[in-house]
């Protein structure tokens, strides 16, 4: 089967400092890939390259076998993206924001109105739909971002910390939604720090550290690399953790307890 999305030796420099180097992986249609790594490992850079918002310094991104830079606009039309930070036009209401996005994506008016109303209702945002986003909580903004990413029924969903700020119910809904979308043929890249969620949702993971892939493959395979019955958290900790967490935690508590 042809890969839906393929990253080939992606490299990105920011003012001569490498953020990621030679990152390669593939995603099949209907698959969910977990992108893991500590802070500063290059996850968000990788995600921004995959969305087409930034250009790689080297390497290629292929979507259905074609380089995305050749037909960037067509590619973006098939991508839904939830970024790590919820930057939205704060002077618009949630409904106005989604209407603008839907219109730019050329969704028919009746379909757009129906989708927005229904999705607002399903995400429990109906009461705030006409309030300015400046008054939204982080979770409410996150829900607007999720609706905006799903509005045009994209083939590829790129989710960067999608559960950030979501309440328990919305988080659970999202965790049920992702496998359903994958079962309907959508390709999903799921970048998160919450390893428990990644372990439950993703069959395959890519682990980044210092801008390079340090491990990739099915979760079960990664577990096999370490001791028996190890959780994904243990595996990641072994791969990317350079400090003793227990000792560091103790040191932090000691520093906090210092007094004049």
């Amino acid at each position: 089967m042809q890969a839906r999305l393929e990253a080939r030796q992606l490299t990105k420099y920011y003012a001569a400092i490498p953020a990621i180097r030679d990152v390669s992986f593939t995603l099949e249609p209907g698959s969910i890939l977990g992108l893991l790594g500590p802070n500063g490992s290059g996850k968000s850079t990788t995600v921004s390259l995959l969305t087409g918002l930034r250009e790689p310094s080297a390497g290629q991104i292929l979507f259905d076998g074609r380089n995305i830079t050749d037909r960037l606009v067509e590619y973006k039309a098939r991508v839904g993206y939830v970024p790590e930070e919820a930057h939205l036009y704060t002077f618009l209401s949630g409904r106005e924001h989604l209407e603008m996005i839907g219109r730019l994506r050329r969704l028919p008016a009746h379909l757009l109105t129906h989708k927005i109303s229904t999705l607002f209702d399903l995400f429990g945002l109906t009461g705030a739909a006409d309030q300015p986003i400046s008054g939204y909580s982080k979770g409410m903004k996150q829900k607007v971002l999720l609706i905006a990413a799903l509005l045009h029924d994209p083939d590829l969903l790129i989710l960067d910390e999608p559960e950030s700020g979501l309440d328990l119910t919305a988080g659970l809904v999202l965790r049920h939604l992702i496998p359903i979308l994958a079962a309907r043929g959508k390709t999903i890249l799921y970048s998160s720090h919450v390893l428990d969620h990644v372990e439950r949702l993703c069959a395959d993971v890519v682990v980044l550290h210092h801008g390079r892939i340090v491990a990739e493959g099915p979760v079960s395979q990664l577990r096999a690399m370490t001791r028996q019955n190890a959780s994904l958290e243990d595996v990641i900790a072994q791969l990317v953790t350079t400090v003793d967490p227990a000792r560091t935690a103790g040191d932090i508590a000691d520093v906090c307890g210092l007094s004049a």
Partner: protein
Amino acid sequence: MTAFRDADAAPVGRLVLGLFLRRLIDNDVISPHADRHESLAVLGALVVTLAVFVTFFISSEYLAAFIQLPGPTALSALSDRFLFIAASIAVSALATLMVWDALALEARDAAILGPLPIPAPTITRAKLAAALLFGTVFAIALNAVPSVLYPVFLTMNLRGMDGRGILQLMVGHATSVVMAGLFGFFGILATRGVCRLITGERGFRRISSTVQSALVVFAVTALLLAPTVRKTVVHDWVAGTTPVRWPVRPALWYLGANETIAGHIVAETAVVLPPRFSFVGFPKRQDESSKAAYRALGPAFAALARRAWVSVPVVACLGIITFLWTNRRVPDQAAGGRGRSRLRERLRGIGQRLTESNPETQAGFFFTWQTLTRSAPHRTIVAIAVAAAFTHLLIVLAASGGHAPDLPSTPLGLLAINTLSLTSLIAGLRYAVTVPPEVASNWKIRMAWLGDERDYLAGVKRAAIVALVIVPLLALLPLDVGLFGLRISVAHSIFGFLFAMATLDGLFLGYRQLPFACSYVPIENPKLLWPAGLSTVVLVAYEFANVERWAMQTTARTAWLFIGLAALVVLIKIIDRAQRRERPPMNFDARPAWATQRLGLFERVVNHD
């Protein structure tokens, strides 16, 4: 947990004050994405350059004088000082309006400081101190250069003036203009506080942006009108021979303060002439009569000065008390604001009907409307454009006495009101589309945009036609009917509409960005382009008024002008369509050249990003 002690209040207050000042400069005065040092340097250079230029321009008659007499100088300096004072009030008020939302505790303050163990009064006092510091420093910085230069230029050829006199003039000038600046600052603070007090928190949230925009229009109009005041008018105002309208009075108070501190120094300067010149005949009579006229104004100056000395403390007290009362608690972070109003729904319905053919056109239409009415920088740009149009209208009406004789002898200014107003608004829009409302949020449009700006741009233009062409023309129609009668007014409005259509399409010819969605890149040569653009607007508007006056005298000429304008609109649209057949890639992230590059200090900068 460490308890918060009263002894800690002072250092904590200073820290919070520092935070508020930093936020004021970083996020409100300067774009959050700009380099603070560069922006402050540019702002400082702009203030100094403008101050030097304006002072030199105003003082040119004194600098060029071979023989300068104290009497006429003392009288003519009245209008100069009035201009400096009026400008100080208006510019300080404008600067305060630019940081309108930061003049009170905001939800973001609650988000940052709410969880910390800092008493609410400490936060409130720090916010007030930051605002006061901003207002005071701005008033001083704005007036520092003219306060030094103007007295020097004024007395450059007044040979009897000594150093002590010049110093006294500087003190008088600085005191009056800084007081005027503080009056402008406290006036806005007090207006905000009183409005907030009357309407309550929810009510104020609804009207805040409208009040801010109205005040911007008022301040800019005042600033633009100030130079048109003639010397005799200021003299007559002070003497009480001409009735003084209320908006002018505060400037006269501070003029009175200036004259009571140091104004008499010029009038009483001894006449010292160059060798071989004698002080007899007409110059002597002129000097004596001017001195007498100036001295006669003394009691009026004293009365005005008394009001000046009282006005600043009164307005300051009002501003501070309303601030402390309305900000006694850190605000809630809870969502609030508008809901779905019937009027908004009706406008929305009209907008949808105007653009129902295409979703991208709808996106452009509604986003333009929402941005121009709700985004603070865009509201300010529109308000400045409205103020420019309003200023021209007031000047022309005042000059013509609000009366138009028969069409062939109608003053061009009256006929240029429509075109100049529409051109000013459209030029404001053309500038506004280059400014993104929130840079960090542009990613969403970049992701959703499908690669063709034509339909979106059509929506932007349609919103402009409704908001900036049709609405103003309807608002001006009663005035036109009063001036020219119904038949000519209708033809005049139609010509105005076609002229605006041509101007709108013309200004967007060759514009290959996505309005409101690309990063802001300042124009390359503002010193040349802004004055050239302004002159062109005035020249074109008046020339068009001339053509209109000629055309509307007969039906046949009217028809020909209509056909000609319609053809021009169609022609520009055809050229635009032809140009847009090519689809070059959109650059959403165009960046201005680094300051070092602009100054030629860098041959090459390698950007790896």
